[in-house]
């Protein structure tokens, strides 16, 4: 334990973790049927590679990753594929629980490339909530030097205890998983950031650390304060580093992983077990047996809660995720996915709906709790007024949507809802602007092509005329004075713009290989067409006076 730094603001909501951290981590009963959405990760949805009626085992790939950022999907029970639709795959179980595992890898000897490939095959994504494919995250070392791996065990949201229980039961495995990631990204240090409200997990970690560790692992216990589990906030608190706006932790040489993800990585490498189950916190006053369960992906939320003693008449809402940043489920007939870390079956008294909103009195309480040091109330006024310029100037996009401002607002203004709306409106505008720009480029390309064709036509015509003229030896009828100098300048400008477009294309392709280059290629093609047209016109103009002289 060493001293911690600090991020601004923060709040102390009721923790309510006792409800789910009193019982051990157990396996949920094997579901009879699972529904696997194709999109359980950030990026593109996976593409199904099984058909109706196919027999699958636990761990069989049922959908393959599609495109740059995506992830494989595996059957989480053995049985028969009963439905393949555009959005999900359903499997009817046979009750056998037959597994299909990949061969075991010794991570200390294995090549980094084979470890990466294993993460890719195993469909591992960040289990903390964002669901970013882990193999892509591991490849960040291609562009950034990483020196510290942070294990984000802060788990700052109320209610959730999934990481707590994971660490209590699997501290050794989590640390081993961390070493795999450290090997992949070349990190020299591993820091575990954990809030001091998890004494059992801290004890388990200390015990695991006392067994010999080949590389430097440091345990930092920080005082409980929301939102210290935010990636940027935790990095600030542990390392006193500011992750730049719009950047990634990798920009300051840090990689962040959730304990659950590290455990899944170890299971994938050591046991060849793809991501088919995860730890889910079941909690809330409306269930009688709260606690943490190993749940197969695709299990229905209703089935899971009913097994935990759901008291339906008391149930007010089920929240997926934490009470601060989670989302209420519209229906219980929805499956557990790779992103489901917590299900709160709340009663009305427990999480009542917010009281009616009253006007902002600019008290500034929101500012004093904002962990990013934004001015939430200014953003509120500008969001309501749809003043987009001001929103960007006051750094709307730096908001991490932690909800601390809404929590303290004495006027009960749903600030984060406003910010989310404003963000999505601005994102849409940006996309529209890019589309309009592309359309303009397409139009310019067409104009350039037509101009080039016209110039070619002219050149052919002139050539024909010259041939005809030579035998008859009559002076050119319409020999207008041509602006040779102007054409030369136009030619030089066209040449320069081709060079510029080439440079642009090369730079972007090098900087960000993921980005689509269609638009830049289109601009290059336009410049090339313009150059061709200019060349033809120039050649033509040069020929004319010479033909006149010869006559």
């Amino acid at each position, binding site marked *: 334990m060493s001293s911690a730094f600090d991020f601004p603001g923060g709040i102390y909501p009721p923790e309510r973790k006792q409800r789910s951290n009193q019982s051990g981590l157990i396996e949920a009963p094997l579901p009879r049927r699972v529904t696997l959405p194709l999109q359980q990760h950030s990026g593109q949805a996976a593409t199904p590679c099984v058909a109706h009626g196919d027999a699958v085992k636990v761990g069989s790939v049922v959908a393959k990753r599609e495109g740059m950022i995506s992830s494989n999907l595996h059957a989480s029970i053995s049985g028969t594929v009963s439905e393949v639709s555009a959005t999900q795959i359903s499997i009817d179980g046979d009750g056998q629980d037959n597994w299909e595992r990949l061969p075991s890898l010794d991570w200390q000897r294995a090549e980094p490339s084979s470890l990466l490939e294993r993460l890719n095959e195993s469909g591992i994504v960040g289990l903390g909530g964002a669901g970013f494919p882990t193999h892509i995250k591991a490849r960040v070392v291609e562009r950034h030097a990483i020196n510290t791996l942070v294990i984000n065990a802060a788990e700052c949201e109320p209610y959730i205890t999934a990481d707590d229980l994971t660490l209590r039961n699997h501290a050794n495995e989590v640390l081993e998983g961390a070493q795999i990631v450290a090997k992949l990204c070349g990190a020299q240090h591993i820091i575990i950031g954990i809030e001091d409200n998890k004494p059992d997990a801290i004890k388990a970690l200390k015990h695991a650390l006392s067994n010999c560790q080949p590389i430097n692992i440091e345990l930092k216990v920080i005082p409980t304060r929301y939102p210290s589990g935010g990636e940027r906030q935790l990095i600030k608190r542990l390392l006193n580093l500011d992750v*730049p706006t719009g950047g990634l932790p990798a920009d300051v040489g840090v990689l962040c992983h959730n304990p659950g993800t590290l455990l899944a990585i170890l299971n994938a490498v050591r046991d060849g077990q793809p991501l088919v189950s995860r730890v889910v916190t079941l909690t809330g006053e409306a269930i009688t047996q709260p606690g943490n369960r190993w749940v197969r992906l695709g299990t229905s939320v209703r089935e899971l809660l009913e097994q935990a003693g759901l008291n339906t008449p008391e149930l007010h809402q089920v929240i997926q995720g934490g009470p*601060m940043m989670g989302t*209420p489920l519209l229906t219980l007939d929805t499956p557990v996915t790779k992103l489901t870390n917590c299900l709160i079956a709340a009663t009305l008294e427990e999480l009542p709906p*917010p009281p009616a909103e*009253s006007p902002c*009195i600019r008290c500034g309480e929101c*500012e004093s709790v904002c962990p*990013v*040091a934004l001015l939430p109330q200014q953003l509120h006024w500008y969001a309501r007024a749809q003043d987009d310029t001001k929103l960007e100037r006051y750094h709307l996009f730096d908001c991490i949507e932690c909800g601390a401002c809404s929590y303290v607002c004495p006027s009960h203004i749903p600030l984060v809802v406003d910010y989310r709306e404003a963000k999505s409106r601005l994102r849409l505008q940006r996309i529209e602007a890019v589309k309009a720009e592309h359309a303009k480029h397409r139009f310019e390309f067409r104009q350039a092509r037509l101009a080039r064709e016209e110039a070619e036509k002219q050149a052919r015509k002139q050539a024909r005329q010259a041939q005809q003229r030579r035998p008859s030896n009559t002076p050119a009828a319409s020999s207008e004075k041509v602006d040779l100098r102007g054409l030369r300048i136009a030619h030089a400008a066209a040449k320069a713009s081709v060079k510029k477009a080439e440079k642009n294309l090369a730079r972007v392709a090098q900087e960000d290989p993921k980005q689509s280059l269609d638009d830049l290629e289109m601009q290059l093609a336009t410049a090339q067409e313009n150059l061709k047209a200019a060349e033809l016109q120039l050649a033509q103009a040069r020929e004319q006076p010479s033909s006149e002289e010869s006559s």
Partner: protein
Amino acid sequence: MSMMHASGVKDANTATSVPPTASLMRWVIAATLPGIATMSYFFGLGVISNVLLAAAFGIALEATVLRLRKRPIRVALNDSSALLTGVLLGASLPPASPWWIIGVGMIAAIVVAKQLYGGLGHNPFNPAMVGYALLLVSFPTYMTLWAPPQELLPTGLWAQISGTLPTAQLDSLSGATPLDAFKHKGEAFLASEFWAANPLPDGTLSAWRWVALAWLAGGVVLLAKRIISWHIPVAMLGSLLLLATLFYLSDPSHFASPLFHLLTGATLFGAFFIATDPVSAATSQRGKLLYGAGIGALIIIIRTFGGYPDAVAFAVLLMNLCVPLLDLYSVPRPTGQQKASPGKPGEQP
């Protein structure tokens, strides 16, 4: 969204954040009670009748304008903000002021300064101080004449109802506040001579001191309950004391002592109850410090060089004018951003 909300999800041991808006307002009203009680002890029941009359005007005017604006009346009245404006203005006026003076002040406060700008949360100026400033420039002599301590007669209350100005007192210094008396002591007098002459009725100075301390007590309650933040009062009193000390040290024979500035007039009342009005104050913490410091400095400057004996209302209104500027230049640097002040769009690193 399933955000945990302040009112709903408070466990007893973690109730650290601020109460909802309506109860914020009620807390401020409650915190004015020691001040009002002390004032009426020294200046008579006219203080209480002022407050009650102004509060009644406040509610009636707010309801009328909301009706004209076709806004829900009950919801807005429930937040008690009009009531608070009435209490603050009523407490600022000379005891047993004629009803129409209170009425004019409250119309300026509620109708013009608050509702015409869009109601709660939208007023750029402190409503109570707009009302007070209007009355001060309209009736300058009357507004600086206070009944001497322990001299409230039933006739005073009758004058309030009949609406006559107390003309009898207008040319006597006996009703003047200490600030007014000191201001008009004349250049020939030295400060020491002025005090030696014992120009004020017995007990005036100590009465004002007790009142000031009572406002301070209310303010401390507000700070302790986290109803107001410390930034504005601390910055305001700090700059006021600093400037007053500098003047006093430069020439103690002509300038009033810092303690005199602190404990007479509306200094402490203004620091905790007027300048801290969140709606018309600067928003960021740095901005609040600048805003408070500006008020403190302006109070000393106007009291020393200006035409009015006290200056809290004008200082607050002048700093209200500066709030948009302060807000623009006091933006904190968001984590991860290079620049503190709001950058231009597209300037993101």
